[in-house]
C-alpha cells in the first residue's frame, strides 16, 4: 500500500442475488485529495461508496467480497468493530436526513456518542462546527427548533456540520449537491476544496463540470467496472479508454 493512499480497495466484488453490481474494483484513494467517482446512473458509484463504510450491511440482498483497507484495517472484515471504523468517515448523502431532534442536538448527537463531554465544551464545539458549515448565522437564534424545519440547503449544511463534528478523517459524499440550489451547491463545492487540507474526500457525482472543477483524482466507472482512473488532467485531457472519451464527449449510449 502506498503511503500516500488513504483508502485501498482491492478485488472488491458486490453481488445482488445473481447480478453482479461491482466487478473486481481496485482503487487507491489518495490522502488529502478530492477523489471523484463519476459515471452514468446505475454504474455502481453509490454502492462503491457504501462499501467504504460498510453501509452495505443495511441491504440484505448485497453480498460483498474483497478488501477495503483504511488505516491498516479491513472495513469489510466482520471481526472489525465497524461502529468505531465508521467514525473515521463522515457521510453526506444525496438528500439530507436530519436526525429527528433539534438543530443543536443534530450536531451534538455524534459527539455525545463518541465521548461524554462537558456541557460547555459541547456547546463550543457545536458553535464551531455550525460556523464551519457556514450555518451559524442562520440558526443561532433557533438552535432548539426541529432540524426538519430548515430548508433543504440548510439541512445539507447541517449534515456536513454534524459529519465534521465527529472529527472524521475521510468524508464520503454521495451526489451531495443533487438536491440543492446552485448557490448551496457552489458553497458545498468550495467547502470541499477548503476541507481537503484536513480530510480525504471521496465524492460521487454524475455532474462532469463539478468533477472537473474540484477533483484531484478521478475514477470513471461504467456498468460496475472501473474503466479508468487517474489525476483529473490525465482523465479529462488525455483519456486512454474509448468509453471515457465517449462519456466526456457526451456521445455515450
Amino acid at each position: 500500500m502506498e503511503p500516500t493512499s488513504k483508502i485501498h480497495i482491492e478485488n472488491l466484488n458486490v453481488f445482488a442475488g445473481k447480478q453482479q453490481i461491482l466487478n473486481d474494483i481496485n482503487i487507491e484513494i489518495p490522502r488529502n485529495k478530492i477523489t471523484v467517482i463519476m459515471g452514468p446512473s446505475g454504474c455502481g458509484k453509490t454502492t462503491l461508496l457504501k462499501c467504504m463504510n460498510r453501509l452495505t450491511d443495511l441491504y440484505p440482498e448485497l453480498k460483498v467480497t474483497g478488501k477495503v483497507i483504511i488505516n491498516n484495517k479491513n472495513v469489510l472484515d466482520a471481526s472489525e468493530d465497524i461502529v468505531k471504523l465508521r467514525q473515521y468517515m463522515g457521510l453526506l448523502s444525496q438528500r439530507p436526513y436530519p436526525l429527528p431532534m433539534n438543530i443543536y442536538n443534530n450536531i451534538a448527537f455524534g459527539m455525545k456518542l463518541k465521548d461524554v463531554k462537558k456541557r460547555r465544551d459541547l456547546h463550543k464545539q457545536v458553535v464551531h462546527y455550525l460556523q464551519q458549515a457556514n450555518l451559524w448565522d442562520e440558526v443561532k437564534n433557533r438552535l432548539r427548533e426541529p432540524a426538519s424545519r430548515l430548508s433543504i440547503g440548510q439541512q445539507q449544511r447541517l449534515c456536513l456540520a454534524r459529519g465534521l463534528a465527529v472529527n472524521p478523517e475521510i468524508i464520503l459524499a454521495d451526489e451531495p449537491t443533487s438536491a440543492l440550489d446552485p448557490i448551496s451547491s457552489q458553497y458545498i463545492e468550495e467547502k470541499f476544496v477548503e476541507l481537503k487540507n484536513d480530510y480525504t474526500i471521496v465524492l460521487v457525482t454524475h455532474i462532469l463540470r463539478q468533477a472537473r472543477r474540484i477533483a484531484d483524482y478521478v475514477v470513471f466507472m461504467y456498468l460496475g467496472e472501473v474503466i479508468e482512473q487517474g489525476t483529473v488532467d490525465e482523465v479529462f485531457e488525455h483519456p486512454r479508454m474509448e468509453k471515457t472519451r465517449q462519456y466526456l464527449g457526451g456521445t455515450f449510449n
Partner: protein
Amino acid sequence: MVIATYSILAILALIIFSIFAKGIKALSWEILTQVPKGGYYYGKGGGILNAILGSLSLASGATFLAFIIGLPVALYINVFLIRQKKVVILIRFILDLVWGIPSIVYGAFGFSMMIFLGIQTSLLAGMLTVTLFILPIMIRSMDEILRTVPIGLSEAAYSLGSNKSELAFKIFTRQTVSGIITAILLSFGRAIGDAASVLFTAGYTDNLPNSLMEPVATLPLSIFFQLSSPVPAVQDRAYASALVLTIIILLVSLFSRGLGKRYHKTKINF
C-alpha cells in the same frame, strides 16, 4: 357496489344511532358515579362506576405492559434483524396469525395458566391475558410505523458512530413518536372493548377496583349482565354503558387520528 357501500353505512349508522337513542335515556349522573347497589340488576339504583374504572385500569395496565414488551420487539425486528429477511417475514407472519386468534381463546389460555399458577380471577390475571391478546396488535402496528423510517436516516446515524441500540432507541423511536402513540391508543381501544378475554380471567364484581389480586368489573361484561336482566329499565342501562364504552373508544380513536395526521405532516416536511 353502491348498494353494498350505502347499505353497510346505513347499518353501521343504525347501530350507533340505537346505542345513542337507547343509551342517552338511561344515562345519568348516578350511573356514571355510583357502584351497583343491591338489586341493581333487577332495577334498583346505582351505577356502573365499578365497570368504568375497572375497564380503564385493566386496559391501561395491559396497554402499558404490552407497550414495554412490544416496543423492544418491534425495534429488534426493524433494526437488528434487517439482514435476516426470512426471519422477519416469519415473525410478521406469526404475529399476523396470532392477531387473528379470537379473544375467547386468549381467555381460555389465560384461565388455564391461572389454574396452573394457582391465581384466582383478578385484575392481574385479566390484565396479563389482555396483554397477551393485544401484544400482536401493538407489535405489528409499531412495526408498520418503524418500517417507514427511511434507510438514509439509519445510514446517517451509523455514519455518526451510533450502534444498533442507539439507532433503535434514540433515532427510530423519536422519528416515529406520534405513530407509536397511535399504536398504543389503537391497542388500548382493543383492550377496553373486549369481553371474552376477561370473562374467565378478570371475573366481575360490584366493587370498585382496589387490588391487583381481586376480581374487577369491566364495561363489556357489565353490558352483558345488564342486557341479560329481564327488567327493561336495566336493559336500557346496558345501552347507557355501551354508550360510555363507545364514547371512550371514540375519544381514543379521534385522539390517535389527530396524532396520526400530525405524524404525516412532520414526515413529509422536508
